[in-house]
């Protein structure tokens, strides 16, 4: 690498500068993940203020205006600045390593996607300082409310999402081209790690639905009115006053919005499919079935959007269709869960921190999935739609599901990323605090919703809801302690965490063949891939060469 280093100008070799100009997929991956974690903490703090306000009936901790801003930016950030980009970060770091490539197909485009993400995030966060404050119409920004919203917060929200859309689509193109073209010798489609499969679907889904969001947002922006040079443009796509349709926006938004859930959830599934087999010491159960279910979920996710619109008064046959389509998604999702369970069956299970998170994911995601059945049944949705039941449901899938998977991934791949492991003891404390705090926070919200508490209200007069809300608030602060422990863990092990070598978990996939951390070019050579578990094959061949017999 000496030769390459000399071609790099001196100013780019500094500690900070080298990160600013990097096109190395591993560094960009780490940038993505760390930036997302910062946004995760910011958006989490917003949720803590929200929970404080709701702990008691008729509380007066924040103004209604500020409350609506916090709810809006919390939701928008968790989806666009945490869910999607942190998984883009894992995909960036892992995909080339897992398929035995030296980088992604378009490294400079990759850097552009990251910096667009950082810019979009900055625009969203700084919009709190805009004239009239940040956007306050919810992360869904339904018109006409979002058309009428005064000030510039809503405009900056649209701008931020436009920037993030470009970033996300550019990233998706990169992953798709990389996965289709740069797999190493022998890595056929059916030998590709399941995480890479999930990133492929993540990419294709983004390509399919993000442009629809961009279109809807552009129409919303024009409805709000813009000045382009000497021209004032003011349209009425979603403005009923001038014959527009308010519900049209909802269709466009959720045509994007529902697949968006799977854009976030599929790579999380993929990480679970990587972690479970390694700690159960077994091949994943039903590789092909899991691939098929990933593809099926991706496809069907684009056909179910109007289950978010059951209360707008759609014709009953249409609602019936969307109920059945939504229920169909439960089938491939169930396949995955049963395959994961079967992966544990007759295994040799170790409970390292990544495995704890993966098992926590399994137990919580099931609950989120099951409450989804109620929401899919449209007459029941008429009752629970837009209530705290829904809030509980999607936090079980996105926080209990995705965030637990993300921590599984962080603890699992941390030694590969930085060459040092995180502290196991702190990790386990964090897990139990997060697991208990999460359930204390979100289980009661189901009941609050069933009893009639709508979402997005800054206060409530009904004191019978106080118990649920107080529990929720306590749980959320327990979770905050857990996240704090993670920060402590990162700082504490930064210089002193144990170095554990290239393959500490005795894993199956190619990234563990590289050194920890891997060199800029990843591999000097890549072994020929003959199955979906190349490293397992390699270890077996080595044992055979040494004349050892495989344990019975």
């Amino acid at each position, binding site marked *: 690498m000496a030769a390459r280093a000399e071609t790099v100008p001196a100013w780019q070799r500094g500690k900070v500068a080298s990160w600013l100009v990097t096109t190395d997929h591993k560094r960009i991956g780490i940038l993505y993940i760390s930036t997302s974690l910062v946004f995760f903490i910011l958006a989490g703090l917003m949720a803590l203020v929200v929970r404080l306000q709701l702990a008691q009936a008729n509380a007066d901790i924040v103004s*209604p*205006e500020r409350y*609506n801003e916090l709810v809006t930016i919390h939701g928008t950030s968790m989806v666009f600045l945490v869910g999607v980009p942190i998984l883009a970060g894992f995909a960036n770091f892992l995909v080339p390593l897992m398929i035995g490539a030296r980088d992604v197909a378009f490294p400079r485009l990759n850097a552009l996607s990251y910096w667009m993400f950082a810019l979009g995030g900055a625009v969203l966060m700084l919009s709190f300082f805009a004239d009239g404050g940040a956007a306050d*119409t*919810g992360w869904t920004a339904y018109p*006409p*409310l979002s058309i*009428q919203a*005064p000030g510039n917060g809503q405009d900056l929200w649209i701008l931020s999402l436009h920037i993030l859309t470009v970033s996300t689509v550019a990233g998706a193109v990169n992953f798709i081209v990389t996965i289709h073209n740069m797999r190493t010798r022998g890595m056929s489609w059916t030998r590709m790690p399941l995480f890479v499969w999930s990133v492929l679907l993540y990419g294709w889904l983004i390509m399919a639905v993000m442009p629809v969001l961009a279109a809807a947002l552009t129409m919303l922006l024009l409805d709000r009115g813009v000045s382009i040079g000497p021209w004032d443009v003011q349209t009425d796509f979603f403005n*009923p*006053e001038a014959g527009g349709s308010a519900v049209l926006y909802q269709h466009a938004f959720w045509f994007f919005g529902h697949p968006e859930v799977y854009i976030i959830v599929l790579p999380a599934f993929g990480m679970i499919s990587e972690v479970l087999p390694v700690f159960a*010491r*077994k091949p994943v*159960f*039903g*590789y092909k*079935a899991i691939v098929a279910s990933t593809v099926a979920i991706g496809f069907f996710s684009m056909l179910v959007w109007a289950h978010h619109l059951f*209360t707008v*008064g759609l014709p*009953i046959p249409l609602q*019936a269709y969307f*109920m059945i389509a939504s*229920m169909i998604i*439960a*089938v491939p999702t*169930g*396949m995955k869960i*049963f395959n994961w*369970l*079967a992966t*544990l*069956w*007759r*295994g*040799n*299970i*170790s409970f390292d921190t990544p495995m704890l998170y993966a*098992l926590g994911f399994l*137990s919580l995601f*099931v*609950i989120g999935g099951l409450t989804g*059945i*109620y929401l899919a*049944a449209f*007459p*029941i949705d*008429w*009752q*629970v*739609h837009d209530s705290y039941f829904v809030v509980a449901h999607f936090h079980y899938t996105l926080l209990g599901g995705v965030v637990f998977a993300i921590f599984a991934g962080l603890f699992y791949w941390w030694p590969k990323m930085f060459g040092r492991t995180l502290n196991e003891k702190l990790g386990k404390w964090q897990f139990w605090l997060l697991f208990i705090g999460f359930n204390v926070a979100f289980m009661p919200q189901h009941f609050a919703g*069933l*009893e*009639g508490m*709508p*979402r*997005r209200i*800054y*206060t409530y007069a*009904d004191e019978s809801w106080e118990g649920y809300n107080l529990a929720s608030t306590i749980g959320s602060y327990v979770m905050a302690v857990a996240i704090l422990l993670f920060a402590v863990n990162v700082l504490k092990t930064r210089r002193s965490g144990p170095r554990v070598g290239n393959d500490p978990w005795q894993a199956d996939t190619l990234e563990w063949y590289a050194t920890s951390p891997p060199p800029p070019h990843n591999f000097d050579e890549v072994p020929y891939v003959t199955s979906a578990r190349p490293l397992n094959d390699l270890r077996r061949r080595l044992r055979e060469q040494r004349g050892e017999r495989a*344990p019975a």
Partner: protein
Amino acid sequence: MRRLLALAAGLVLLAAIVAPSALAQFAPVAPESPNAEGIRDSYLFISIFVFAIFALVEGLLIAFIWKYRRQKRPRFEDGAPIHGATKLELAWTAGPVVVLFFIAAFVFIELPGIKDVPEAAAGEQQLEIKVTGRQFYWQYEYPNGVIAIDTMVAPAGEPVSLEVTAPDTDVIHSWWIPSLGGKIDAIPGTTNATWFQAENEGTYTGQCAELCGLEHARMLASVEIVSTEEFEAWLEQRRAEQDTGSVALGKEEWEGVCAKCHGMSGEGGIGPRIAGSPTLTDPEALANIVRNGRRTMPAVGSGWTDEQVEALAAYLKENPPSGS
């Protein structure tokens, strides 16, 4: 394998036994109208499967974690080299399909009872009330032109059908009284329909379920169910009052429309203090500001009839807000 199947069957059975008592706790509020009852029945029916699947999955998870934990085996000793089983895959693909078929079928069986308005008794005319969602109050219009704000009065035992909408200049709201059925959005430019038929007299509460702006949380609604005679009397009295400057309607308007931002005694809140403002005692200025708004104050009473404006003026004349 046989023991596993027995374990699974046991877990499902256990859930089926425990479920009925537990289920009633984890369901929508006690229904007071046939549509709310149909929804609750569907919910409970689905719960049987949901609790069974929950017990099965979490039970197997815990059982596997316990049974196949490493114990004294070497750290990296391989587990059983099992890659999959086609028959199992088919079983857990087909199983959920069957369950979902039953769930969907049950929903379709319950559906007519939830969505269709029952016929009114012979000789009776169906009562229709127009519900308009506005920032941040509910306005009800009875067939004889009587207007009420936030609190709806309706007769017991009779089917009441609701036409739900919002003015073109307003935003989306959602009508929801949990014990009287599901919610339906009040959308500018669109009219949706729902209904209820409450047998028991009493007051049933709910609130707007679609974020509609600053005071979304205060957009409460209640339905007061009274006997048919009481209802007829109420309707006639309100009609008569409305012709002469109704103080009752004016009070509802003050509390439902003005006070949510300006405070119950005009002391100020999200909106400025208005107690003692000359506008309150000047009917023309009052009509102007209510119908057209001013600066950040929305036109809360755009489209109000003269009767409505006069009612507010009449109320304020008798009850000038004290400011504290």
